[in-house]
C-alpha cells in the first residue's frame, strides 16, 4: 500500500516540467506512468468484482454435490500467486544509488567548470584593451612569440612570413 500511496502522491505533469526532462527520459517516464495507470485501473476493475461464491446456493440448485464440493475445495485452497519483488527492489535501490552518485559527480564537475568560467569571465572583464598592451605583456602571455622570433633571427629572416601580405609594407625602398 505504501508504494501505491507514493505513486498517488506524485504529480506527474509537474515532474516532467519542473525537472526539465526531455527526449528519452521524458518518453520513458510517460511509458512508466501509463503502465502504472493501467495496472491501477486493472486492480480497480478486478476488486469491484464479487470475490465470494455462494456454494450453498449451488448445492441447492445442482444435483451433483460432489462437483460442488470439489470446486469449493479448490476455491478454498486457492491462493493468489505472490511475487518476490525484493530482488527488483534491491536492483532499483542499487540503480538509484548509482544515479545519485552520477548526479553528484556531474554536479561537482559542473561546479568546477562554472568556477573556471567565472574566472575566465573576470579575466575578460578586467582585461585591458589591445591599445594599452605592451609587446612584453603579449610575449609573456604567449611564449611562442619569443621562440618564433629567435628561430627567425637565427635564420637571418627579419620579416615574419605573411606579415607584408596582411598589413602592407611601409618601407620606402
Amino acid at each position, binding site marked *: 500500500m505504501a508504494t501505491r500511496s507514493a505513486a498517488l502522491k506524485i504529480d506527474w505533469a509537474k515532474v516532467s516540467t519542473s525537472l526539465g526532462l526531455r527526449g528519452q527520459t521524458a518518453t520513458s517516464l510517460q511509458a512508466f506512468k501509463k503502465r502504472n495507470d493501467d495496472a491501477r485501473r486493472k486492480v480497480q476493475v478486478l476488486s469491484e468484482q464479487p470475490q465470494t461464491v455462494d456454494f450453498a446456493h449451488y448445492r441447492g440448485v445442482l444435483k451433483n454435490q460432489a462437483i460442488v464440493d470439489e470446486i469449493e475445495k479448490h476455491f478454498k485452497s486457492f491462493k493468489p500467486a505472490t511475487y518476490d519483488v525484493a530482488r527488483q527492489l534491491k536492483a532499483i535501490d542499487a540503480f538509484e544509488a548509482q544515479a545519485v552518485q552520477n548526479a553528484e559527480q556531474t554536479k561537482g564537475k559542473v561546479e568546477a567548470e562554472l568556477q573556471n568560467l567565472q574566472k575566465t569571465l573576470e579575466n575578460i572583464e578586467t582585461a585591458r584593451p*589591445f591599445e594599452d598592451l605592451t609587446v612584453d605583456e603579449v610575449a609573456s602571455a604567449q611564449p*611562442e612569440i619569443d621562440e618564433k*622570433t629567435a628561430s627567425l633571427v637565427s635564420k637571418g629572416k627579419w620579416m615574419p612570413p605573411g606579415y607584408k601580405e596582411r598589413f602592407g609594407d611601409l618601407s620606402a625602398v
Partner: protein
Amino acid sequence: MPQLVPFFFVNQVVFAFVILTVLIYTFTKFILPRFVRIFISRIYINKL
C-alpha cells in the same frame, strides 16, 4: 690637407671596419630582433 698626415688612411680603414662591425652586431642582436618580435606580436593579437 689632412690626407697628408701620416697613417691617415690606415686610421680611416680601421675606423670604417670597427664602426661597420659594431653596427652590424647591434642591429642583428638588438634592434632588428625587436622589430621581428613586434611584427610577430602584431600577427598574434590580430589572430585572437
